[in-house]
Every structure is written in structure tokens, then in C-alpha cells.
């Protein structure tokens, strides 16, 4: 099983990278984009196939290392 963890800066925290991309898109004529948040994607290849166990463990990994919850939020997606 695979876990995909997406991490972005929390709402309310200025994301200068997202702002730079937003401006670049708008200068290309994509004026319909209201906001851009740039984050990172971490893919974990898990040995176990136990969904519930994996969910708990990956959440713990996010809290301890993968994300800094003072500034970031994370989303976990488990893929068979």
C-alpha cells in the first residue's frame, strides 16, 4: 500500500511561492485563478496492507517529522 502525504502552508500564512506562481499565471492570461498554494508531496511505500493501522502510523509520522504543524497542514491519502 502507498500513502500520499500532501503538505501545504496553513491558510492565513503567506505563501510567497504560491503568490509568485499566481502572478506568473496571471501574466500568461490565466486571470481566473484566485489563489495558489504551493506545497510538497511525499509518497510512502508501506509494507503493511492494514488501512486503519497505516492511517494511524502515517498520521504520527506527519505530526513528528513530515509536517511542522505550527505552519503546515497535511492530508493523507492511502492508495492500494
Amino acid at each position, binding site marked *: 500500500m502507498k500513502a500520499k502525504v500532501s503538505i501545504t*502552508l496553513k491558510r492565513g*500564512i*503567506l505563501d*510567497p*511561492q504560491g503568490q*509568485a506562481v499566481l502572478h506568473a499565471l496571471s501574466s500568461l492570461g490565466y486571470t481566473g485563478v484566485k489563489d495558489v498554494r504551493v506545497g510538497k508531496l511525499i509518497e510512502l511505500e508501506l509494507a503493511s496492507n492494514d488501512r486503519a493501522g497505516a492511517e494511524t502510523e502515517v498520521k504520527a509520522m506527519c505530526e513528528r*517529522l*513530515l509536517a*511542522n504543524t*505550527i*505552519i503546515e497542514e497535511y492530508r493523507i491519502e492511502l492508495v492500494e
Partner: protein
Amino acid sequence: MTAPLRIGVLVFPGSNCDRDCHEAVTQVLGVEADFIWHKAATLPQVDAVIIPGGFSYGDYLRTGAIARFSPVMTAVTRFAEAGGLVLGICNGFQILLEAGLLPGAILRNRSLSFICKDIRVRMENTVTPFTSRCQAGQVLTFPIAHGEGNYYADQATLAGLKTRNQVVFRYCTQDGRVTPEANPNGSLDNIAGIVNEAGNVLGMMPHPERCADALLGNEDGRLILLSLLDAAKSRKPVMAS
């Protein structure tokens, strides 16, 4: 007779200011210093620990995020909890934040650029073990060199920092005004350095070790290092553990 002072300088893979710190302490200030490799599970008997700047673990994931789990950081945490003096500079500050020894976090510079230049900071708190030789409101010149120095904390944390006078340096103009223009990296409230509640752990983005020798054209950094040595001399040593 008391033993001569000894300062420990941590070394992580990717540290690059460790030698500057060692040199400033030993050659400029004439005090003994030991390099401490990040794998060390215990600290040698030292009177203070400096966590130097650099790019520990290539800044992978987040600055300081991996270094904080190095064995030596468990020892540094015990040392700090026992009242030991810890000075984190640049990447050292980032590591202290990730380790939870200081509150808040670091974001990328607002400009997205790596900034390497001299800046001014105003002394906001001179009753710390790291700033006793400075005058309140004094403007010091320090070099900064970082891509990620944009300090962030939530409103409650910031309010606590202010109430307890934990903000030690703020970016300012030459004449000591704290303005948005004087803020090089977007740091919350122009914060350039903070101490923990107990006052024995300081994290700062500017580099005092790079301006401690007249030969380098600026000696403002000596004030920080000499304050640290004064404090280390007058304190009861923390036993190595």
C-alpha cells in the same frame, strides 16, 4: 581553582559555520572549545553549547527538521532543561525551533531570495545571558546569510513572547527604528532572535561569530559572545549527562 571555560560547538552533516564559531571562541576570545559530532549521545563537560549555522542535512524536508532528531539533540535538550546555556545561530536557530526548545517556526524569506548582507538589529532585551554587555536600544550591525529566516508564530505565541520579554533582537534601520523596510526577510514583528522562557536558550538568525574580530571590519558580535562567556563563568556548571 575552577576549571577553564569550555564551549561545545555542534557539528552536523552540512554545518558550515562550525569552524567560524570555534575560531571566534578560541582564537578571538581565547577560550577552549570542542567540536561535538551530531552522533554523540552525551555532551562532554562544557559550559555552553553553540549550534552553528549551515545546511544540516541539506535543509531537506524543512530547515532543521532532520537535525533535531540527531542523538546530540537529546543531550542538548537535557542540558538546556538543566539550565545549560545554548546559543543557536541561523541554522542553529532553525534546529532549536524544530526541536521545540524555542517557540514558533521559520518560513522561507518573503522575497524567496537567499539574502547575504549586513543588517541592523535593535537590542530589545539586555538581561539575558547572551546580551548583558549590550545597552538597551543599542543598534548593532550583524551579517545575515539565509534563505529561510522569516520567523513565524501564531498570535497567542507572539503575545506570550512580548509579555515575557523574550524578543531579544528586532531588525531595524540605522537609527534604530523598527520598520517594515528594515525587515529583510518578512519576519513576524521584525523578530531576529528570541530566548526561551527560562532565558538560557537563544536563537538568532544573524551571525555574531562572523563579526567578532576587528580584522573582519566589525566587532559587534563580540558583545554576544563575551556576554555568553560572562554568564558561563558565573554559573554553576551543568553536569554532563
